[in-house]
């Protein structure tokens, strides 16, 4: 976004984007990568980073730039003593308990090193997820607000218990058709790469990758445009709908014993045969550093308790219908911990989260 376009924004946002531009230099040839996370708002992240540095990242330093929109951390990571260039930013927004990780690193360094760094601060930081439906809505919103045409380039689909599959798009296939077709094949769109074409021939074409895993990348857009047109509304909705309605205040405790269950309504009838409950247990076993106990297992009906060792949070999980997963948070369930469980389940199951 050109500096003169900042004039349209309020002063706080203006200052914020100017600071980001100063701290985050784009690297030619490498599109910026973004990951969205949520943080435990009881605590100061600055203090946390000062108090704990994972051994592998010993020597890592950071600076903080404070703004009205959020605190911006710039990390110079060291991995086993070696400097890892380029640096990455963590922007902890003030309005919502959301962090934006912004990086110029190559994809492999971003995923395997930078995100691994932030992962070691779980459960105080926890990566967010979005449903396929939300991604579709996001594309519609972007199209409208940026007055561009969205052309799908390639996308990844997945089905329950299946592997991810990359598909290329034929020219002019409406992106919404891709989502609908996936559903009709009992699959869902897991991530998608699109071009944003302006109405005029001279407009530069922007590129965008959005995914259920909360990882985005963009080209020819600039962070300010990306934040305003792609992220802002998405994150606001995440906060208002998921964080406030589902993640927050769910724990049972000595002082508040009432159980507050939720359910995930799946798109397909998944739990139909005897093996299906066992398949579900196999998925649960995939949660690293979590334990589980089988409370009841009768053919296709299962009741489990799952325990997150890092946070101490635990949940009762049942599968009481062919297309539903019910979750009853027990003790020590903070929003970031609940987010982790739902994020994990979302990797494997696409559905709608509803209060019980």
């Amino acid at each position, binding site marked *: 976004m050109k500096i003169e376009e900042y004039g349209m924004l309020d002063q706080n946002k203006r200052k914020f984007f100017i600071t980001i531009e100063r701290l985050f230099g784009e690297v030619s040839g490498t599109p910026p990568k973004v990951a969205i996370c949520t943080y435990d708002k009881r605590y100061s992240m600055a203090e946390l980073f000062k108090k*704990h540095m994972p051994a592998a990242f010993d020597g890592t330093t950071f600076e903080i730039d404070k703004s009205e929109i959020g605190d911006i951390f710039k990390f110079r990571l060291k991995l086993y003593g070696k400097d890892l260039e380029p640096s990455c930013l963590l922007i902890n927004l003030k309005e919502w308990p959301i962090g934006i990780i912004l990086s110029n690193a190559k994809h492999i360094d971003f995923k395997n090193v930078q995100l691994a760094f932030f992962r070691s601060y779980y459960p105080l930081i926890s990566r967010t997820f979005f449903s396929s439906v939300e991604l579709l809505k996001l594309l519609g919103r972007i199209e409208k607000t940026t007055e561009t045409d969205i052309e799908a380039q390639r996308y990844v689909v997945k089905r329950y218990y299946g592997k991810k599959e990359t598909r290329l798009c034929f020219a002019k296939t409406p992106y919404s058709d891709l989502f609908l077709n996936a559903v009709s094949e009992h699959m869902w769109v897991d991530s998608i790469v699109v071009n944003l074409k302006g109405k005029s021939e001279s407009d530069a074409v922007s590129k965008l990758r959005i995914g259920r895993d909360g990882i985005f990348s963009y080209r020819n857009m600039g962070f300010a445009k990306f934040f305003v047109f792609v992220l802002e509304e998405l994150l606001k909705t995440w906060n208002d709908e998921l964080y406030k309605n589902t993640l927050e205040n769910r724990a049972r405790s*000595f002082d508040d014993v*009432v159980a*507050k269950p939720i359910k995930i309504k799946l798109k397909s009838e998944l739990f139909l045969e005897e093996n299906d409950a066992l398949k579900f247990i196999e998925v649960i076993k995939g949660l690293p550093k979590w334990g589980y106990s089988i409370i009841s297992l009768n053919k296709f*009906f299962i009741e489990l*308790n799952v*325990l997150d060792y890092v946070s101490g*949070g635990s949940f009762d999980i049942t599968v009481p219908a062919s297309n*539903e997963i019910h979750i009853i948070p027990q003790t020590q369930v903070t929003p970031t*911990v609940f987010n982790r469980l739902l994020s994990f389940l979302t990797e494997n199951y696409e559905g709608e989260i509803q209060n019980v």
Partner: protein
Amino acid sequence: MSDKDPEGLESKKREIAADINNYQRLLKSLIALYKFTKSEGGEFYFGGRIIPNDKNSPTPDIIIKLPKFAIVGDAKRSLPNPNNRQIFVSEEDYLKTFIENDLIKQLKSYDINISNIGIKNHDLILLAPQGCTDAMAVLKFDFLDKQKSAFERKFILLVYVVEPLANTEQIRISYEWGTLSSSEIENKIKRGKISYYRGELDKEIGMFKIFEENNGATPIVYVMQLLWAQIFPEINKKSDKDIILEWYRTGENVFEVKLSKLIKYLNKLYSLPYIVDSNGATERIQFKTQLVSTAMENFVKMGLVERDNGEVTENTKYKVVWKELPEKEITSYFVEKMWKSGIFKGEEVGQKKLE
């Protein structure tokens, strides 16, 4: 290290899993009754002392307080089989020994004025599992039908079942015999209104996890799971930053806790409400000292918890070393460790070093 009797261990695991499953049936059925009571504008209690401050007071399992009357009685996980000749020499013996002198005698002890706990008029209830056909036949046809009226007050006999359906469970309480003071409620029961699919009971099943019909009814591994996965993290405030920082540094969390606090937390978080007498004294708690201390002793034998030597009292302090267990499946791990420490045989296995 070679496994001692691995076949026995697997069969022990299956036995315990079945025991927990079976235990849950009565618990879920009581929860169904709880939910029905609430829908009728009533309160459901797990028993209480009818005569406050009297250790010999009758203690019914169930007290249901409805707007116009109450229902007081017992819930049974099973009824002995009248054909079991190792215990009963004949059906007549069963009728006398079990039905009259045990089951009915117990119910008759609630057939008294209990206005001192705020109940002016009440009916009696027995809730039994569906499937004890022979026992129910003797009870209904050889006893209840033949008495003019076994009790002064009205009496209703209900049966419960937890039935696996295509993709879920259905929990039902059905009418067997007798009558209630409210023909409206009696009718609802006869018409199968106390019937819930498992998914409808999430909230309640998340909150109520014990029904101690009598001492030793609750499977010990089940209590150990509640302690390890829920109570220990809650007492230690495991999701607080400082505790998490300790975890990052050492991979475990160490804390001390008294037996009395464990009992308090278990009861607060997981038991059905119990009726309190006019003095406000807490009665009929469900996670009792013996149950919880036995669970803790198992952890001690497994090397997960330490305590001082000496007699175990409510003031006994335990040091819990809470960490990620070597096996993902927690209850299975507990059974295996207990098996290897000889707990199921009621003795420790010499100086054998546990892994």
